[in-house]
């Protein structure tokens, strides 16, 4: 059986050259960078180098603007809470978009309990932040604006530079969550107008266990993990040296190979989407069409009349690894809030599937996926009472409505006696 990994947003394999660079820091150069002896000083140099490598990837002015954390989530928490707490005396209002990752969303909701206020900016039907609405949401209490670079679910590239210009005009720090974008989109913090920007190295062939926060020197930031004075006093705790070294190497490779990776992956994205579209009726692409508004490595699909987990499991049994934003797949038993934010019909949200591509995928793999997935959809539709009702004209398609009957969502609400969302 072929193995096709299409879940690069969840995890990427570590780059062999990154692993090679990490190896000595496990058994041999095991020192703590806070130590003043050989063992400590040696690994300090390694951290310095990694900081330079990361700074180059995002075009930071200085490596001192790079902070290492334990991962994308911690970087987001540090940015959101660290800026909010640091500016508590100036104001208590946060502006953020409704498609932000749960790391942002739940950090903001935590702060709300602590007395902060916030405004959630809506997105359009492809998930793009409505910039004018964002501008209107800013108050004189606003101390932070949060907009992601690319959406983690539907791949929408956000108009961050536009937001950055507004932020600069109002003198408010802008935090850009680039956890799902870095490595796949060229990043220039200056150009974006980002005061803070988070990266997740394990999304671009770096190791797990390390995250990055870029912070412009002018942006005030307090620490959220308290303890020692590592990372310039902004992140306590013994540094995860091997992972930081790996992150640096992965960043260097990402900067070097960005163009070729993007070109390759964008080609696959187009091939896969046009293949699927042709082979499978009643399939919807969520988010923008492949092109300048969409990240190069993501396809977010909704297969009508069938549910996402079944599709995912059968694909897995055929060697194809994907993700899904359906409620059955999520631990919270709710559909992805991003799908809700773009107003996706419940039926389509339940049939959700996320395919994220990487540098090792091939054109043949895309064709294989189209083939296998067509068969799987057919099989699951054969089991679906909805498909049957659709064939018999009782319910109607949402993707390509015929006007013959109720939508699945209406139908489901009737069956269960509860509204579908």
């Amino acid at each position, binding site marked *: 059986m072929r193995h096709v990994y299409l879940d690069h947003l969840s995890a990427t394999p570590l780059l062999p050259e990154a692993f090679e660079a990490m190896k000595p820091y496990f058994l041999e150069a095991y020192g703590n960078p806070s130590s003043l002896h050989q063992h400590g000083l040696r690994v300090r140099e390694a951290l310095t180098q990694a900081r330079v490598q990361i700074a180059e990837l995002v075009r930071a002015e200085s490596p001192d603007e790079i902070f290492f954390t334990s991962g994308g989530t911690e970087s987001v928490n540090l940015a959101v809470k660290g800026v909010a707490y640091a500016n508590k005396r100036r104001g208590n209002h946060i502006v953020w978009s409704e498609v932000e990752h749960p790391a942002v969303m739940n950090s903001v909701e935590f702060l709300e309990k602590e007395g902060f206020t916030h405004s959630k900016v809506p997105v359009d039907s492809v998930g793009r932040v409505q910039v004018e609405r964002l501008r209107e949401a800013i108050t004189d209490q606003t101390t932070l604006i949060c907009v992601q670079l690319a959406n983690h679910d539907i791949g929408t590239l956000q108009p961050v530079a536009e937001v950055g210009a507004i932020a600069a005009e109002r003198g408010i720090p802008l935090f850009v969550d680039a956890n799902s974008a870095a490595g796949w989109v060229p990043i220039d913090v200056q150009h974006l107008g980002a005061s803070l920007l988070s990266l997740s190295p394990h999304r671009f062939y770096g190791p797990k266990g390390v995250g990055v926060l870029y912070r412009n020197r002018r942006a005030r930031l307090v620490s959220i993990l308290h303890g020692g004075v590592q990372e310039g006093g902004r992140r306590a705790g013994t540094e995860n040296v091997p992972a930081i070294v790996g992150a640096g190497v992965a960043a260097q490779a990402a900067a070097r190979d960005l163009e070729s990776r993007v070109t390759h992956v964008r080609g696959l994205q187009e091939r896969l989407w046009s293949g699927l579209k042709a082979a499978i009726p009643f399939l919807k692409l969520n988010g923008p069409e492949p092109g300048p508004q969409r990240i190069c490595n993501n396809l977010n699909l909704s297969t009508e009349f069938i549910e996402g987990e079944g599709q995912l499991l059968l694909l897995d049994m055929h060697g194809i690894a994907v993700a899904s934003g359906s409620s059955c797949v999520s631990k919270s038993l709710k559909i992805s809030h991003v799908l809700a934010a773009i107003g996706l019909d419940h039926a389509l949200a339940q049939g959700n599937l996320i395919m994220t591509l990487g540098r090792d995928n091939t054109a043949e793999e895309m064709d294989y996926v189209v083939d296998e997935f067509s068969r799987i959809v057919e099989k699951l539709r*054969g089991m679906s*009472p909805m498909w049957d009702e659709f064939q018999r004209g009782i319910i109607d398609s949402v993707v390509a409505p015929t006007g013959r009957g109720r939508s699945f969502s209406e139908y489901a609400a009737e069956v269960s006696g509860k509204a579908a969302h």
Partner: protein
Amino acid sequence: MSDTYTLYNKTVMDHFMNPRNMGDLPNADGIGEVGAAACGDIMKMSLKVENGRITDARFKTFGCGSAIASSSMATELIKGRTIEEALHFSNQEVVDALGGLPPVKIHCSVLAEEALKAALEDYVKRNPESASQVPPSAASANGR
């Protein structure tokens, strides 16, 4: 990777991959359809009843792997039972026969129980004479 790792145990995976009794029964004697809007599962169950005994059962399911497996297992378990026995059917039987389900997926087995009971109710409605066999509480508790 040499082994295959699965989200569900072997039995569940088997019933998901190779569901038993999938489809509709032509001329079913009772049909039930239930759903859980929150998780987006819909299950439809059709029964054939002869002499107060379920002789055949079919399902169609819109839902996750464990929903499909639960419906498959429920139809297997219910065949051959009397209406009264069937009215005492509990989701736990499905869970046990499947060798367990993850905690968040127990509701799938509940849905299978509900689909079965909705189909039985439909049967009783169509065959009022059979109602005498059914303790009144059982029939109404599961009606919708």
